[in-house]
């Protein structure tokens, strides 16, 4: 499998510019990179979910240009997603053969099905652990589900390349060992495995070679035995500087949010922090490390399993409605499905979290609502036809500004921002940084999660790193580099 010069644009962002990749039969090839480096785009291209704008793919010496995932599967390239996508009500065997069942006169060929399922399952079973092909998938644990997904990939007799996307992210330590022994077994049958992971110790354990992506380019490739962990991190961390609203001098006041050993249902495992008025505290960490879950637990959207939380003088957990009343606001990372009600107007979305001041006697008068909204539209430069345009019709950046406008209107003084610049253009980004700076100067306390380290280094006063659900110590932003943060998140 070989890829050369792959490129892909999404609207204004260039996700991949120049990616080269070479994978040999019977090797485990690790693909490394920071969040947003282009790993998942590359994998989607290889598995046929996206078509590249430029560049070519070769498989076993022949041109390979799958038009959809099914074509890729038939050509022998199978993708195993992070979250196994299986039908829980069907048996293991039915899931393995889903879509490729053999039939005789339109009736399922049971004998053939059993034989093929057994063959595929034997490839992912180790001696201690055999999967029962008749069990319902809903009764399986996460690692077994992962194996079923892999068996499904293998049931296609011609499987040549298997892509594993963060396969260990939802597994415990014992399950990881089991997965690795299956991977080694597959490797010995000559299948090439593309292994995507953030965790370097895992990669060192299982992979033979590596490629590092940064900003949509391949920046290094080679034998894993020839490099140190430090060198890999050096390759992954960029040295780019982003511009936009600089950080003005701030004078933090008293602490308004304090956590001690806060524990959620699964994530976070243990988080302690103290956030003061007039400062921006950044939370760095990998996807899935529990950063969003931390914000959601603070806001009352996720249950709290233990530890101490104190917001201003309110001790203990509260539901979101109470948090809003206490002056806490949350910007959701999932703008599309949670952050905004896309079917409702800009005005409805902007004013939803606080209805007072929209009319006499607690009434909500459309005229008042429009006037309030127009104020924010002008202040934030939201581009829309009118206050009554549906929020779903706006561009990503403008939708984000509506979400920010809501926090402004709500007049929250503790603001939790989850990926505030995700999916918005450069100009809107700079505006977002400016808004955050203004808020901090005005004495609001801001807790900000971002996958983009340069952004955190630009905007925050202090940064803490979340790693596998555990929040690390606080670093002053001028005493820490991107390299340090990445080492703490991955190492």
């Amino acid at each position, binding site marked *: 499998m070989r890829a050369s010069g792959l490129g892909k644009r999404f609207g204004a962002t260039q996700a991949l510019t120049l990616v080269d990749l070479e994978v040999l039969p019977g090797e485990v090839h690790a693909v490394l990179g920071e969040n947003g480096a282009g790993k998942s785009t590359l994998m989607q291209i290889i598995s046929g979910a996206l078509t590249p704008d430029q560049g070519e793919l070769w498989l076993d010496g022949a041109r390979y240009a799958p038009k959809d995932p099914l074509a890729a599967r038939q050509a022998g390239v199978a993708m195993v997603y992070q979250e196994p996508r299986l039908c829980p009500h069907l048996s293991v065997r039915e899931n393995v053969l889903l879509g490729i069942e053999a039939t005789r006169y339109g009736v399922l060929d049971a004998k053939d099905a059993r034989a093929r399922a057994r063959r595929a399952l034997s490839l992912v079973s180790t001696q201690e652990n055999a999967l029962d092909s008749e069990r319902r998938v809903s009764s399986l644990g996460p690692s077994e589900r992962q194996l079923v997904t892999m068996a499904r990939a293998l049931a296609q007799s011609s499987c040549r390349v298997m892509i594993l996307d963060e396969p260990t992210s939802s597994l415990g330590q014992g399950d990881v060992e089991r997965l690795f022994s299956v991977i080694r077994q597959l490797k010995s049958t000559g299948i090439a495995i593309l292994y995507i992971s953030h965790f370097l110790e895992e990669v060192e354990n299982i992979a033979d070679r590596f490629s590092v992506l940064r900003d949509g380019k391949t920046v290094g490739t080679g034998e894993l035995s020839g490099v140190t962990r430090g060198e890999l991190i050096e390759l992954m961390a960029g040295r780019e500087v982003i511009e936009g609203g600089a950080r003005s001098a701030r004078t933090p006041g008293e602490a308004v949010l304090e956590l001690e050993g806060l524990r959620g249902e699964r994530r976070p495992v243990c988080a302690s922090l103290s956030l003061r008025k007039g400062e921006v505290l950044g939370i760095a960490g990998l996807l899935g490390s529990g950063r969003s879950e931390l914000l959601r637990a603070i806001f009352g*959207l996720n249950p709290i399993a233990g530890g101490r939380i104190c917001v201003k003088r309110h001790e203990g957990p509260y539901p*979101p409605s109470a948090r809003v009343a206490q002056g806490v606001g949350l910007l959701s990372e999932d703008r599309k499905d949670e*952050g905004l009600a896309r079917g409702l107007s800009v005005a409805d979305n902007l004013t939803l*979290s606080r209805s007072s001041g929209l009319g006499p006697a*607690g009434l909500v008068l459309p005229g008042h609502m429009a006037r309030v909204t127009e104020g924010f539209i002008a202040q934030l430069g939201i581009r829309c036809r009118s206050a009554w345009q549906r929020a779903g019709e706006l561009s990503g950046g403008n939708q984000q500004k509506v979400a920010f406008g809501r926090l402004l209107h709500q007049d929250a003084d503790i603001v939790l921002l989850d990926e505030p610049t995700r999916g918005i253009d450069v100009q809107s980004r700079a505006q977002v940084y400016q808004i955050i700076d203004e808020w901090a100067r005005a004495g609001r306390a801001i807790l900000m999660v971002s996958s983009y380290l340069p952004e955190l280094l630009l905007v925050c006063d202090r940064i803490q790193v979340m790693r596998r659900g555990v929040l690390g110590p606080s670093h002053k932003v001028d005493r820490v580099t991107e390299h340090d943060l990445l080492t703490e998140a991955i190492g």
Partner: protein
Amino acid sequence: MIFSPRLSASLSHSLLPSARELAAWLRRPWFGPLAALCIVYALFALSAPETFAGSANLSIMARQTAVVGMAAIGMTLIMVQGGIDLSVGSSVALTTVIVARALEAGLDPGAAVLAGVAVAACAGCINGALVLLLQITPFIVTLGTMSILRGVAKGLANEQKIDAETRGLEALMSMLPDDQSHWLFPLGVWLTLLAAVIAAAFLIYTRVGRHVVATGSNPLTARLCGVRVGRVTLLVYALGGLLAGLAGVLEFSTLTVGDPTDSLGLELEVIAAVVIGGGSLSGGQGSVVGTLFGALLLTVIKTGCTHVGLPNWVQEILTGAIIVVAMGIDRMRQHAQAT
């Protein structure tokens, strides 16, 4: 005479709606059902000018719409919140039985009405509580309570109609005597209109009403904004039950008996009225005014077909076709808006 361009522009602005205002008008959720109502009414009025378009018939149609309309106002609230209530037909029947039993027991009419409405409102609260506590989809919950309430009604009535003395309650829905004809419609119709005005104002102008819409449009966003989604859910089902109870009182007044087998399939007619009126099964959309137009449209088709002499089966096909066409147009309109 010379107009400055600015003056003429402002004149035309004030007198004639601009294209933009016209477009905004067309986008009103109740515009489609109103247009359909006018067209269908005009068609029937042309084919049977003497009988159908007469003022007596107008009053009859208004009275026939009142029960469905009252129940449909409640259903609009529930559907805008993202739920559904299949038990509304059973609630109406149960209310007629309760009112009849209360009158039989010698309660005065006001108390009987109060008892009927209270029972229906309680049933609504139970619906809401079950949806909340069991986290079962409203469709299933109310499918269950539909059967339960029907059973309760039959049990209370010993599976028979209850002939109670109506003691003036029949006046709510009966034809007005000649000396009161300046009222146009009997009190029951006015009650329905009053309920509609209150419900429409509730949805548009109150904080809780906006929360109902937001919860239906996207419950996650609502929660994020501090809306107490649970309370909103409970409230709409309670209000839905209350309005079903009022519909039951009007139904009793029409029937003048308590009938446990009455209003079978009413829920479908009520849902049809909401959907024709611009409501969506997935929540966040719907208008009380549109719903009333939808309910009227259903009555006009029913009555019109009878006047023109079309058999019942044609009427049913027509009703069904209108629902499907209304939905199709709505889809296209939304699609056009989205692009």
